[in-house]
């Protein structure tokens, strides 16, 4: 008897006993549903962290030269904090030598930020993160463009003109139902002209990424964000991963020599890549995946026990059928296969149902909450594989019992 024939027989049995089959597979379905949903959500969050969030905070193939790390991973000891406090700030005078050492294809920009009081004629004052940046390259690195108006012009950087590019939320808040272009925004009492509104950046875990104001480095704003001669960070972007690594080494060499560090001394500055931000996430993701796999595993074990039970019942219910089949020439192997295929088909059917439900769940969560979700293709295969495995494991005992039945006794049984 062919495998396909056995699947057909199994499918017939499932079709005839719809409700019973549904209850049989519910354990596997729930297990797989959660497996797919959890993997999708964790995967979605991971992808989101990598592509979106970290990409926005620290652009792609880019690193930040800072005095202290911005993103802290794990626990930070008192000593580390004290060491950070002792570090020299990154100065404007550091920028020239670093930039001069970088290869020509590498982009760089200087950035400083502070939360400052911003006001307009149309809204109450509010504290907004205000940044000054050194040039057009900053927007290129951050892959930020304007939705309305224009970016800051090179001449405006050179002159330090009082112009700003604002985030979408800032535009909505300070210029409700108005065109913000050409209007005035006061930062620390000094008026700036809005020249552009940036594209919507979206949100990260429910926090808007569209609350910012950006001005040229030489604009008066600079005095408010940082002490004279000091910058927050230098953003450097390589043309590739390798180019970024090389640029990091160049920067490190220049900075160490400027700070007169001996070879034995550690860096007294931070070179932050998106990796360092992701490291934290990867750790967290590991725990989430373990939890996300352990919980469905319990469901699958329960599912396996239910299937085994139902199959045992099916074997005793169908003892007569087994006897008939044996009298007509079914070998042990045929009967064994029939029940194994049946339990496997049941379990895979449950798994497929679970995959559909799991994807539905993931999509629903993605739609209804700030958590993103991305269905991982491998999780679908794992779901089907796990379902099939559960079916085989759960089916072995009942199927071998069925295959060993004596046809005479089996046919004599009343049903």
């Amino acid at each position: 008897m062919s495998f396909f024939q056995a699947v057909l027989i199994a499918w017939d049995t499932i079709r005839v006993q719809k409700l019973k089959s549904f209850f049989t597979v519910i354990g596997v379905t729930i297990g797989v549903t959660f497996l797919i949903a959890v993997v999708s959500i964790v995967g979605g969050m991971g992808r989101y962290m990598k592509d979106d969030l970290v990409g926005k905070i620290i652009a792609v193939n880019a690193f930040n030269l800072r005095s202290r790390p911005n993103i802290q991973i794990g626990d930070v000891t008192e000593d580390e904090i004290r060491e950070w406090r002792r570090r020299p700030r990154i100065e404007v005078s550091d920028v020239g030598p670093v930039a001069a050492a970088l290869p020509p294809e590498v982009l760089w920009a200087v950035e400083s930020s502070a939360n400052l009081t911003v006001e307009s004629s149309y809204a109450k004052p509010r504290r907004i993160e205000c940044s000054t940046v050194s040039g057009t390259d900053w927007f290129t690195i951050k892959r930020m463009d304007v939705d309305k108006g224009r970016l800051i012009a090179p001449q405006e950087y050179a002159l330090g003109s009082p112009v700003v590019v604002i985030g979408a939320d800032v535009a909505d808040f300070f210029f409700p139902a108005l065109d913000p272009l050409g209007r005035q925004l006061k930062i620390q009492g000094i008026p700036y002209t809005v020249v552009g509104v940036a594209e919507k950046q979206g949100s990260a875990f429910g926090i808007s990424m569209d609350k910012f104001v950006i001005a040229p480095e030489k604009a008066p704003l600079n005095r408010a964000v940082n002490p004279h001669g000091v910058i927050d960070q230098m953003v450097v972007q390589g043309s590739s991963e390798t180019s970024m690594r090389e640029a990091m080494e160049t920067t490190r060499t220049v900075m160490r020599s400027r700070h007169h560090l001996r070879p034995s001394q550690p860096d007294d500055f931070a070179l932050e890549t998106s990796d360092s931000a992701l490291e934290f996430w990867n750790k967290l993701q590991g725990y989430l995946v373990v939890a996300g796999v352990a919980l469905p595993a319990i469901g699958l074990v329960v599912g396996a026990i239910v299937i085994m039970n139902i199959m045992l019942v099916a074997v005793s219910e169908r003892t007569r059928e087994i006897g008939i089949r044996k009298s007509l020439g079914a070998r042990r192997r045929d009967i064994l296969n029939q029940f194994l295929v049946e339990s496997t088909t049941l379990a895979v059917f449950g798994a497929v149902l679970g995959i559909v439900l799991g994807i539905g769940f993931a999509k629903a969560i993605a739609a209804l909450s700030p958590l993103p979700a991305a269905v991982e293709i491998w999780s679908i295969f794992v779901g089907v594989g796990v379902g099939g495995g559960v079916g085989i494991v759960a089916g072995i005992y009942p199927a071998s019992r069925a295959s060993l039945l004596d046809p005479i006794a089996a046919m004599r049984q009343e049903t």
Partner: protein
Amino acid sequence: MSQNTVEAPLGVTAERQIVATETGRAPNSKWVIVTRGIKREYDMGGEVVRALRGVDIVIGRNEYVAIMGPSGSGKSTLMNILGCLDTPNAGEYWLNGQEVSKMTDDALARVRNKEIGFVFQTFNLLPRASALHNVELPLVYAGISADERRRRAKEALEKVQLDHRMDHRPNELSGGQRQRVAIARALVNAPSMLLADEPTGNLDSATSEEIMRVFEGLASTGQTVVMVTHEPDIASHARRVVVLRDGLISTDERREQFISRVGLTGAAH
């Protein structure tokens, strides 16, 4: 086979007696069934029940034989052994030239599939499958392709005049129709022997007659038929009647002898 064998089946002849004693030798191909001193004992909780105590039976091709006997005579045990559902403790059983008494379970399953067509008292049809699917079943285990199965199953159903009901499930068929489906299933693999166990036990007398006419038709086309029954008027449809008593053959005679001995009146045509 010669026309003679069909028309004059014999009970015990000298030739058959010789065949039955040639231990270890494969019988001539004109004998479908040869048993040589088969014994079957059951251990029922310490007590040994001797169901068969040395049965020699020789059945030729195209014979129509009834095996009779009261309950406890061993006829069910004999039927199980002849049907390759069970093996004897001692003795030989040759079916269509193969010694099946020493076969493994899987080899027996193969023999049941190829050589034997069963017809049971309780029909033993799969309740959830259509008549056609039930008839196809032996072909499934013979590894025949789906198209071929369908064709042959339809043919077998036509033989029992049930091709118009083939999509119905057993519970939508009458008792007689169910038994005809079972007969079609038994015939679909073109077995060497049709083995019927009380085929009319669950049927009223009119339907029993109808089923007996089907058997008669099959026997007249050359199908070997062995029928186990305890009803003398059903047994008297066969051309040869073997009576078992206490695990041994007590009589083995032609229908006419059997009828006159038990005094049946007008049972057979």
